[in-house]
């Protein structure tokens, strides 16, 4: 029995998804919830459904429609039944009904920002937990930031594919909940969690708080699953799993702190073959039993997920560290330094291979921060949808919807004056009482600069574009327009500045722009059309300004070769022409000293207006954009 439990617990630790789900069940209010960024798929339903059915046993589970408005959250007077019954009938809002339960938000990327703000406020009160299902694609803005930063766990598609979900029994969960208040946390753990957050570049102070609460929940869980006096797992293994789970997705850089970190890095370089036999040892034995146990656990984790490299290396690291530190386990209560190294090592091992190194996280973090507001869908049907701006007098019709509440409100003061037609009717409504919804018709313009950052003129050109971006943003206070920058050099194009209207943000991200190298024009145009399509889908109007001399020399696969490069670029330009035809304004600014035929033919192919501006300056670009 105990062996079985032990295995179950280890499986839990090895799978971020299972860990997150079970911890959330133990401490739903303290941990806030899970932000799951994955599209609808069998893998997603594989865990969401069993999780929800278990959560339903423990408390209310309410699903929020992505089009829910503030009224449905807060509640209010139910007019239909109030009029019917002749007395006020107050309906509870969703936020009140979900008290201490779980709120499931599907398509969270489409959430109205003001609704998100309300939910965020309620989360601050620890009123309920939230399951945020975010279906945004990689380069789309996802769920509102103000929500996801209040949730402890961020789960990505990669976590869903790796493992199957281990769910606890509801008795275990309840038992752990009872234990929560009896768990004491050793000071060393505070330090480890605090320092690890800094090491991973996780600035938000909510993250370590979540990690701490998760740690408490995990210890409670360990206690319930294995009530024997001996602790079931080493502290560092638990902490490592939590660091990977909570800080991993938030990390902006691979961990780097003090000297034991550099030792850790050195160790990472060391050949792994020598430690391999030790790792396969099934049963812990010998004087450093604790370390062995941790290793075995890690090896287990590795085997479970079929991931070879990093976990093995990190285990090796641990061993090196241990031998260097000597018999640290004598110094219980835990000494801090080795604990941190081991926890960070364990965390690294648990993170998907190459995730930190590739900077993929930083990139998602960037995409995330651009998602400050969940933007709702296309606003082309303005008048019927969008953000509510209040009501106005008018007749409902195909272009305007009746606002029932406001209509009743307008009619009420006149009831005494209006003779009742029949006894049935509680309310007499006349034409002048009719009120209709007014929706915001925000016609937001996003200007995208596509900048050729290759060659010698790059630095100057980039500087001018930077100036133009900042000037444009400085003018945009009232118009609420946005600016984005795509730059291309070497072998690829890159979205340097996602659409933003914040000067602060633009300044920060444009501060260091690299320049020089080849001209991957085809990739740049491909990226431009992809992004424009995405943004248009979010209801933005786009204009793109390309600054280049049109002399492509890197093809779409990133290989040099002028002929193929030009051919690819022409092809991409033609694809862009479709966007130009469907309403996006394109401008080609030729930056060559004299008109270049390449640029002209490129502009023609993508149906852009052509400008010769060899000394493109910030003011000129701004004039072009506005």
């Amino acid at each position, binding site marked *: 029995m105990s062996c079985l439990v032990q295995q179950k617990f280890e499986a839990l630790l090895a799978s971020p998804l299972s860990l997150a789900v079970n911890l959330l069940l133990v401490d739903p209010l*303290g941990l806030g919830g899970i932000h799951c960024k994955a599209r609808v798929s069998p893998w997603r339903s594989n865990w969401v459904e069993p999780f929800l059915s278990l959560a339903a046993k423990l408390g209310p589970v309410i699903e929020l429609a992505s089009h829910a*408005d*503030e009224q449905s*959250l*807060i509640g209010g*007077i139910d007019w239909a039944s109030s*009029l019917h019954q002749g*007395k*006020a009938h107050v309906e509870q809002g969703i936020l009140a009904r979900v008290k201490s339960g779980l709120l499931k938000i599907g398509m969270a990327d489409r959430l*109205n*920002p*003001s*609704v998100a*703000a*309300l939910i965020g*406020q309620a989360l*601050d009160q620890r009123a309920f937990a939230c399951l945020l299902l975010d279906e945004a694609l990689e380069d789309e803005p996802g769920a509102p*930031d*103000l929500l996801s*930063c209040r949730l402890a766990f961020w789960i990505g598609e990669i976590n869903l594919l790796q493992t199957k979900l281990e769910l606890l029994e509801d008795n275990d969960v309840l038992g752990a909940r009872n234990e929560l208040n009896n768990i004491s*946390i050793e000071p060393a753990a*505070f*330090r480890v*969690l*605090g*320092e690890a*957050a*800094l090491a991973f570049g996780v*600035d*938000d*102070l*909510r993250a*370590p*708080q979540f990690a*701490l*609460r998760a740690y408490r929940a995990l210890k409670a869980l360990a206690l319930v699953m294995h009530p024997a006096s001996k602790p079931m797992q080493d502290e560092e293994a638990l902490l490592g799993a939590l660091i990977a789970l909570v800080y991993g997705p938030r990390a902006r850089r691979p961990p780097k702190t003090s000297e034991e970190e550099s030792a850790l890095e050195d160790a990472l370089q060391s050949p792994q073959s020598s430690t391999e036999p030790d790792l396969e040892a099934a049963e812990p034995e010998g004087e450093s039993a604790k370390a062995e146990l941790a290793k075995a656990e890690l090896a287990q984790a590795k085997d479970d997920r079929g991931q070879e490299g990093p976990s093995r290396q990190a285990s090796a690291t641990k061993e090196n560290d241990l031998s260097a530190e000597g018999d640290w386990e004598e110094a219980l209560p835990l000494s801090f330094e080795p604990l941190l190294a081991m926890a960070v090592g364990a965390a690294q091992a648990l993170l998907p291979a190459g995730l930190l190194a590739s900077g993929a996280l930083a990139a998602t973090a960037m995409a995330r921060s651009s998602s*400050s*507001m969940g933007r709702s869908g296309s606003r082309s049907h303005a008048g019927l949808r969008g953000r*509510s701006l*209040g009501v106005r007098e008018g007749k409902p019709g195909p272009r305007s919807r009746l606002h029932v509440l406001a209509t*009743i*409100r307008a009619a*009420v*003061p006149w*009831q*005494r004056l209006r003779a009742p037609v029949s006894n049935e009717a*509680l*309310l007499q409504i006349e034409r002048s009482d009719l009120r209709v919804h007014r929706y915001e018709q925000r016609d937001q313009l996003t200007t995208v600069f596509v900048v050729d950052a290759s060659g010698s003129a790059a630095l100057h050109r980039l500087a001018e574009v930077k*100036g133009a971006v*900042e000037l444009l943003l*400085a003018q945009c*206070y*009232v118009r609420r327009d946005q600016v984005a920058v795509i730059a291309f050099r070497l072998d690829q194009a890159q979205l340097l500045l996602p659409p*933003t*209207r*914040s*000067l*602060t*943000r633009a*300044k920060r991200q444009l501060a260091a722009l690299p320049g020089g190298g080849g001209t991957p024009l085809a990739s740049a145009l491909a990226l431009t059309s992809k992004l424009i399509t995405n943004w248009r889908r979010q209801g933005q109007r786009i204009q793109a300004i390309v600054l280049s001399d049109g002399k492509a020399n890197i093809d779409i696969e990133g290989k040099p070769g002028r002929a193929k490069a030009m051919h690819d670029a022409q092809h991409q330009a033609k694809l862009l022409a479709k966007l130009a035809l469907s309403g996006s304004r394109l401008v080609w600014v030729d930056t060559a000293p004299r008109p270049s035929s390449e640029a002209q033919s490129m502009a023609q192919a993508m149906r852009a207006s052509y400008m010769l501006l060899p000394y493109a300056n910030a003011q000129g670009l701004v004039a072009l954009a506005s």
Partner: protein
Amino acid sequence: MKHVYPFAALVGQDDMKQALLIAAIDPLIGGVLVFGDRGTGKSTAVRSLAALLPPMQAVKSCPYQCDPQQLSSACPYCKRSRKRQSITVAVPVVDLPLGATEDRVLGALDLQKALREGVKAFEPGLLAKAHRGFLYVDEVNLLEDHLVDLLLDVAASGENLIEREGLSLRHPARFVLVGSGNPEEGELRPQLLDRFGLSIDVKTPMDLETRLEVLKRRDAFDQDPAAFCALYESQQQALQALIVKARASLASVELPDEVMRFIAQLCMKLGTDGLRGELGLMRAARVLSAMRERSKTSIQEVIDVAPSVLSHRLRRDPLEESASASVIARALRDMAAA
């Protein structure tokens, strides 16, 4: 009763705490704007104010909790009622949700009364609730511009004037507007910025010890709120006493001519628009002197409050790199040298 994280237990963020205390002592300062990263304790600080501020006397069952000592001429309730009992209530700190409609903020026709009794009655909104207290708007930069305009208008005039749905009335609404937000998500128009009295930039502490302290205190609070609050009770009391004392001595704080001159010179040097900068500086420096139990304002107090009073009032050149705070610091240095 639900325990709120005590104000005295907040770690660091001294500028923010100072600004909130100044506003608590002198509500006429004109609102506080707190801009900064997520998870820096902005909301916690504002919400903890309610427990910190000394309770006040209010007219019983007046929807606007008027002060019995100093009846507002605008209060429709107190004007009508003859017998007034006074009760002790906590200073209101009202949270304004982003999605709030104009109806909820301003107040609207009370439909229930209208339907059942056929009376045209007014249902007070959030502005009425916040009278004599604080109105907190999180993510103020995401709030609809017309709502922010309206809030600032009411906050400045101290009265909420309602002309809608056949209602026509005014009621007192004197409150301190506290806005917070993250500038990366959109900025406030300069016109609006200028109308906040104080503006603070908060940053995430990056020093390990501070962060650990935050972590420990928060954890202790979560584990046992009652015990944690008891631990900080004496400090809370001391802060409360400070507020009461500073309020009482505020009127008697002197503002010498040379300090006035210094204030005017500083504003001229920085080229702030209008006179709000000067007025704000005078007021804030005086409050700070009262907090420090001085009978006379000195130049030091002006220097201490200058960043929060002026940083959002500088004319910004979009291509200027340096932060407003350093511009002010430089101006202060230059003036000290001269």
